[in-house]
């Protein structure tokens, strides 16, 4: 019998539960990573291999594909928990729901946002991203994907009990994704052009701070509304 880890109580146990589930379901979670890899690989084949052209579109393309990859399996974030009654257990837990939600989002980000961010410089190489852009790409995707995951989780929570909620979710959260996309890709572009990207990075980190405070209670509230049907 497995040794019981008594210290592993509270909402933190949800993080280890979700990380275990994700790890044992690896085939699902490599999906976004493969999507990102294939999407970027196809680009030079479709628009040509001119170094100058690729270098110009690279910042935007790397950001757009990262955004879409984050979105890919996000609508299932709460679905299985809703279907097997785990969500009701979360709601009736003496742990606050927003904390449980935060750990679930963190587990999702660790398994998609983080690998996508770490992959991005390598893919940038394939698009011949100018050398100045690599740090900007890495540093802006890090808070950027975290914001995208937090905002996306709100959409997932709102549509958890809809049978085909994917499209509705995309429609709800797309407008909220736009500022992140605009700031993120312009940071990389301005780094490539030789200007600094401090301003954009500061904006993204501020955005992340706000999302971290606002989103977990909003997601918890959305889950309560959705399941109260």
């Amino acid at each position: 019998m497995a040794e019981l880890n008594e210290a592993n109580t509270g909402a933190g146990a949800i993080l280890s539960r979700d990380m275990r589930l994700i790890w044992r379901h690896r085939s699902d979670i490599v999906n976004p990573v493969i999507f990102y890899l294939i999407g970027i690989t196809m680009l030079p084949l479709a628009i040509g291999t001119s170094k100058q052209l690729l270098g110009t579109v690279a910042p935007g393309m790397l950001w757009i594909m990262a955004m879409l990859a984050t979105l890919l399996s996000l609508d299932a974030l709460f679905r299985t928990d809703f279907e097997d009654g785990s969500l009701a257990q979360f709601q009736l837990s003496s742990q606050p729901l927003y904390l449980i939600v935060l750990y679930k989002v963190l587990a999702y980000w660790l398994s998609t946002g983080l690998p996508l961010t770490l992959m991005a410089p390598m893919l940038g190489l394939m698009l011949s991203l100018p050398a100045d852009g690599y740090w900007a790409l890495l540093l802006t995707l890090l808070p950027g994907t975290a914001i995208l995951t937090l905002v996306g989780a709100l959409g997932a929570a709102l549509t958890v009990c809809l049978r085909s909620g994917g499209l509705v979710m995309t429609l709800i959260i797309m407008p909220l994704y736009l500022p992140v996309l605009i700031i993120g890709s312009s940071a990389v572009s301005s780094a490539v052009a030789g200007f600094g990207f401090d301003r954009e990075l500061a904006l993204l980190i501020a955005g992340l701070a706000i999302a971290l405070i606002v989103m977990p209670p909003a997601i918890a509230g959305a889950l309560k509304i959705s399941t109260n049907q």
Partner: protein
Amino acid sequence: MLASLSFNNISCERDERILFNNLSYECKSGTLLQVVGFNGAGKTTLLHTLCGLRQPATGQILWQAQDISLNPQLFKQSLFFLGHQTPVKGHLTVTENIQWLRSLHPAPSYTSIQQALIEVDLLAYADTHCHQLSAGQRRRVALSQLYLTQASLWVLDEPFTSIDKAGVAKLAQRLQQHTERGGIVVLTSHQPVELEHLQSLDLSRYQPSLEEHIAHG
């Protein structure tokens, strides 16, 4: 353990249809209450309302003479709920499932997980992934929480589903034990239940009359 639970004139709606109204009932310490009614009468809705998962359309539910919506955090500490779904993940082992379910409630347990596994007859499966278990065994994984919880109000939706005869007897014994210690059990079941001092609350008696239907619609 002293407990009191009362439904104070509550009514519930679903999709703008009244399921039942003016339901009042009082449970004292040691009550074992079975909610009965035809399919769609609102048994599950009543249990969800009782847990605070949804709001009653009118009326209030009092736990220890206090409205449950006033101090939900305190109420949740004395509540154990198991719905008709089984919150057990196929890709986690039996022990891992029990651990995360228990982690939701910080109250110290009076039996170890191993003890609970013996009670539900799953000790040999402690490290087995739950997708390899039968429906009844998965159900037992969830029910093992009954041996770990310190909650005084147990709300169980169809607890006997897919449990074998010996398991049902064991479960009934556990429920009886809980009420003897002063706890309250509210359950629904379509199987005949043989429990001593079982009270029954028939939801069909609280159906809205035809006039009320028309007035509402």
